[in-house]
């Protein structure tokens, strides 16, 4: 059976970079155009149109609870239409849509990559991306009720995505799925992307050459992506952000966060940060 392979992460943790690298890898390691890299079977799992088509309903007329409960069925209906392994981006936590019903059903899942980044860097990136202050980003990442594209006051092209608090997100993906999950730290992508891509290629059954791996690494260097955005813009940039490919890197929080802000993040998420080697 053809199945899904999820690229899961909390927002601003390397998901787009990974999608670009895999897109390059699937084309043999060639250059990628940040505005034209989507292939037909690649989308975000929260795509509203795909849900509506699969289930014969207008999700924008449904409550968030009604949508969440129906999503496993929507994924099953979509899986029945897949022709190749579908590598889809996911920001939701690994949740149950209903008791005993995982949002991402294991029976139609090949596996997942879970990308994680030092939450102090995520806070800084998130505040730029969403146009919110640092303290709001810290509060959002500490809220177990936090979700993306919440369906309250305005139309949203994506379905509501419950993400839990940052620690809850990480633990949900690392501990709960009944399918293989490859954990990837953003910081390790910076220093060893080729080894990570090799592991993922094996997991999705993609035969690759060393040259293709190196090509994908080269094609998605931060300066290359930032240069493309500076020249032509980026379709996925939030309207609230000045740029999408802003800084990249690790440890940039040291120049931005106050001591109190950094401490609060460590208080909120210390246990999981320690588990991941961030403390």
């Amino acid at each position, binding site marked *: 059976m053809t199945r899904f392979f999820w690229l899961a992460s909390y927002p601003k943790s390397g998901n787009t970079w990974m999608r670009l690298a895999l897109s390059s890898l699937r084309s043999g390691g060639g250059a990628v155009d940040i*505005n034209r890299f989507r292939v037909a079977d690649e989308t975000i799992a929260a795509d*509203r*149109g795909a849900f*509506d*088509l*699969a*289930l*014969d*309903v*207008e*999700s*924008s*007329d*449904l*409550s968030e609870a*009604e949508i969440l*409960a*129906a999503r496993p*069925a*929507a994924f099953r*209906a979509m899986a029945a239409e897949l022709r190749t392994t579908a590598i889809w981006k996911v920001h939701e936590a690994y949740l149950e849509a209903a008791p005993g019903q995982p949002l991402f059903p294991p029976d139609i899942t090949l596996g997942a990559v879970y990308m994680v980044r030092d939450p102090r860097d995520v806070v800084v990136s998130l505040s730029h991306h969403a146009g919110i202050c640092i303290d709001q980003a810290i509060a959002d990442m500490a809220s177990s009720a936090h979700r993306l594209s919440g*369906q*309250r*006051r*305005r*139309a*949203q*092209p*994506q379905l509501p995505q419950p993400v839990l608090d940052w620690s809850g997100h990480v633990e949900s993906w690392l501990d709960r799925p009944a399918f293989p999950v490859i954990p990837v730290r953003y910081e390790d992508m910076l220093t060893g992307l080729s080894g990570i891509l090799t592991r993922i290629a094996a997991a999705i059954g993609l035969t690759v050459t060393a040259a293709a791996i190196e090509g994908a690494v080269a094609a998605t260097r931060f300066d290359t992506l930032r240069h493309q955005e500076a020249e*032509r*813009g*980026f*379709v*996925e*940039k939030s*309207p609230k952000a000045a740029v999408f490919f802003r800084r990249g890197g690790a440890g940039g929080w040291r120049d931005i966060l106050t001591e109190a802000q950094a401490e609060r993040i460590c208080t909120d998420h210390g246990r999981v940060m320690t588990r991941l080697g961030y403390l």
Partner: protein
Amino acid sequence: MELNVASSVAGLCLCGLRVVSDFPLPELPPWVGDDRPADMVIRRGKVPSALPDLVRQTPFAQFAADGTARFEIADVGAFLIRGGCEVVLAPRLPDDAPDIGLFLLGSVFGFLCHQRGLLPLHASCVEVDGRAIAFAGPSGVGKSTLAAALLAQGWRLLSDDVTVVDLGRALVLPSFPRQKLWQDSLEALALSPGRRLRSGMTMEKFEVWQEAGFRDHPLKLAAVCHVVEERLSGRPPLTRHGGLAALALVRSAIYRRAAGEALAGGDGIFTAAAALAANVPQFGLCRPMGFDRLAGFAEALPGLLRERLP
């Protein structure tokens, strides 16, 4: 099929169909046409919990081999849709809750259109310069908001969200003068909301009545504009598509397409899409994001269309 409904029930009009309903549907204008028998009957009754011989099933809908459809939203009610002419309704909310009409005039009517061989598009349609222009696209792209902005310029609404096309005559069949708009659009366009569309829920999506700006007569479909948000600057607002690109756009714009393929067969839907793509100009329309430039865009759009249409 014999349609057995009390003659005292007032007739309503929906897409040129004479509708007789024992459930109140304030969205629909009264029937003012000829004395024909009802084209569509909506009545309360028992809806079976499941249909036999299913060809398609989702958590909300079932489709049987004989073309019968069943639709249910657990907190709202259940609907049985038969023969392109009958809806049996088992509501679970009071009659004055807007939720029943929301789904009845949405997915349920979409299924009925597919049963009747009418082509429903996921589009809002506005009469601009005497031409019916459909604005198609997925939920959240701004079809209804763009239509409301055109109405604010004095143009008239034929339909919101679902546009029904009589392919044989290439006519848009006007639906009803109710729009569905979110709070941020209402504020940006200074429109007064009616009822909250999902009673008892926190979603700030409302009905908006547009009777004064409604065109109730069919009009030849002059163009379909497939709306996308302008995420990169410098793209032309209007791009004509032909051939396979136009066909793919039309196919993606068919309302409840998967259900239609179950009801009318994949060939039927493909043929309908091909006919619409071949006979009606198809454009990509890049609309500005947000509301700051919306009024100016709506003002300029008729001129852009005038340049591109015969």
